[in-house]
């Protein structure tokens, strides 16, 4: 299964030079915003962009792993929400210490990942349909759990927990440190380790990987669990930010995470998803959101504009990646 190079693309438009179009687009949008809204270029604003992209980056990295292995994970937002829910409940109802609450959050993500892994590896369902099912079930479960979708807040969270999201360490927000740590882990895992090479191999041609003797099932299983755990960490940080769990809050991140991965993938010659590309894709989307904010767009105008930008960005990436 290969999401990136479909068969249907024969006799289509000729492919532009590698990565050129994406780089031009990224640079062009940056220049456009800088020209339209001068405050965009200020140092404080650029720091805002980085700060605001931290959570999306964590989610997008989880998605990168799944896309690298040849699938897609529509339930990253569910893992995100479970991470938030489990952490808040651990703090509120069980009065656990802050680090145990974080572990509880990650455990929530692991559960989601286990479900996905079972569906994909043991029951041989395609990742798209399996994670779509998880997405629907997860959304319904959240509504059931919160009796209709209301948030669960906990204002007396310990300071350490709150600092996960709002704290600052050496001038850099803790959120950004954490995102950076996850980035480093994923970079080493996907781009510098043998396991990473195996993951890419499975994503490129699963049957060849199987014939080469790789334990494809085990690796895919672990990938889904690890990706969901990562997304749950993002959710835990988000809940620390607002000191509450908002059901379906993760939905907003899903399409952006997918977009970040695919925009990033188009930056590489071979069109494979990779960690640094995802980082650039995430920053691009953060830049776009920030730019629209500075332009004073209403939330609904922003939704429309952001949707169109996403569509355009994905189209350009796909055009660039297409192979015969």
């Amino acid at each position, binding site marked *: 299964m290969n999401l990136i190079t479909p068969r249907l693309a024969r*006799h289509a438009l000729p492919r532009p030079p590698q990565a050129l179009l994406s780089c031009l687009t990224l640079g062009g949008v940056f220049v456009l915003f800088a020209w339209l809204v001068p405050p965009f270029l200020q140092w404080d604003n650029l720091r805002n962009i980085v700060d605001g992209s931290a959570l999306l980056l964590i989610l997008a990295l989880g998605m990168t792993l799944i896309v690298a292995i040849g699938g897609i994970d529509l339930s990253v937002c569910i893992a995100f929400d479970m991470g938030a829910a489990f952490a808040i409940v651990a703090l509120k109802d069980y009065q656990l210490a802050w680090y145990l609450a974080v572990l509880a959050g990650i455990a929530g993500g692991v559960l989601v990942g286990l479900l996905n892994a079972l569906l994909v590896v043991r029951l041989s369902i*395609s990742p798209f349909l*399996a994670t779509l099912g998880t997405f629907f079930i997860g959304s319904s479960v959240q509504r059931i759990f919160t009796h209709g979708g209301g948030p669960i807040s906990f204002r007396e969270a310990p300071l350490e927990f709150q600092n996960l999201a709002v704290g600052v360490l050496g001038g850099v927000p803790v959120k950004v440190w954490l995102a950076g740590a996850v980035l480093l882990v994923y970079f080493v895992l996907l781009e510098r380790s043998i396991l990473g090479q195996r993951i890419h191999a499975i994503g490129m041609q699963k049957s060849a990987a199987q014939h080469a003797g790789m334990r494809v099932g085990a690796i895919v299983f672990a990938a889904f669990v690890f990706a969901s755990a990562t997304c749950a960490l993002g959710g835990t940080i988000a809940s620390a930010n607002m000191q509450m769990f908002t059901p379906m809050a993760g939905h907003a991140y899903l399409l952006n995470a997918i977009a970040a991965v695919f925009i990033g993938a188009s930056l590489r010659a071979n069109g494979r998803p990779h960690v640094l590309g995802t980082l650039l894709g995430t920053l691009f989307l953060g830049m776009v959101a920030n730019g629209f904010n500075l332009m004073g767009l209403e939330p609904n105008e922003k939704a429309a504009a952001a949707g169109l930008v996403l569509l355009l960005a*994905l189209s350009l990436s796909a055009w660039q990646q297409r192979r015969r």
Partner: protein
Amino acid sequence: MPTLNALQRHALPSLPLVIFSALLLYLALQAPVLLEPYTLNLILRQSLPTVLVCLGLATVVMVCGDDAVAGGIDLSIPASAVLAAGIVASQVAHHGTPIAWAVAMAFAAALLVGGVVATLVVLVGMTPLLASLASSVAALGITKWVVDNRRINLSEPLIVYLRDAELGGVSVSVLWVLPAVLLFYFLLHRTRWGMNLQAVGGNRDAAELSGIAARRFIAQAFVLAAATGAGAALLLLARGSGFTPGSEENLLLEMVLATYLGAAFSPRRVVTLWGAVLGAVLVSALSVGFKSIGVDIFWTGCIKGALILLVVASSALARKSAA
């Protein structure tokens, strides 16, 4: 996984049907009101938006192939439907546009979305999954902007007519949709266009070698699917007496469930038009049934999600054992 014998291979894809039938039987026993003509009419009427979008999805799956990842899927049909519904509601309620013009604008918008997906798939070379996902994000964003993300009540005569009017105990909207279903069946199974479309889906290489312009059929299928979304928009407005934000998620859920469940009805276990329509009606029956016995609407959503997984798991397992 141990190899399944032939009996299991044939029985496995029928498992969702068995479970579905068991569920419906249980519901009918618990709430006999389900079998009354009034409720049956309600079930049919509620299923109509899903029936229409399933026609669109079934067409796309037929032309692009069965595999949900590399093959045909169109997640943007509910988004087209919701965009069209939003345009009609906003134009009629906020701008006083005559309903005919509003409907025409809505159709144009939906066809535009379909055209965008078609272009992305055929010219740009995106997978249908990504193309439709990206287009649906854009369409939903534009919808939010058009309706200001708010509920819009409608008491326009056409909408009330679709919602309330009956002929011989059957809603007129059902009497409008039935010819649409028959038309689709005729188009896809009784015309040369339809035969060529199915040939493209069956084996694209063979079709192209026989001289069929596969790209043209694929593009047309996506635009046609978006048109079914536009039709579904009017029925969505009738069902909800106006526009409700967030209705696309349930429509997407039911569309996917109904279409893939419908595949279990066909002997070859492929997505078919009648299977999808029957699937849509059954899913509606399930929703109405659960509501009759007092099951929380969110639990119903959960069960539907689980049913999707059950349906695709059993067909995936059956396919694996056949390989």
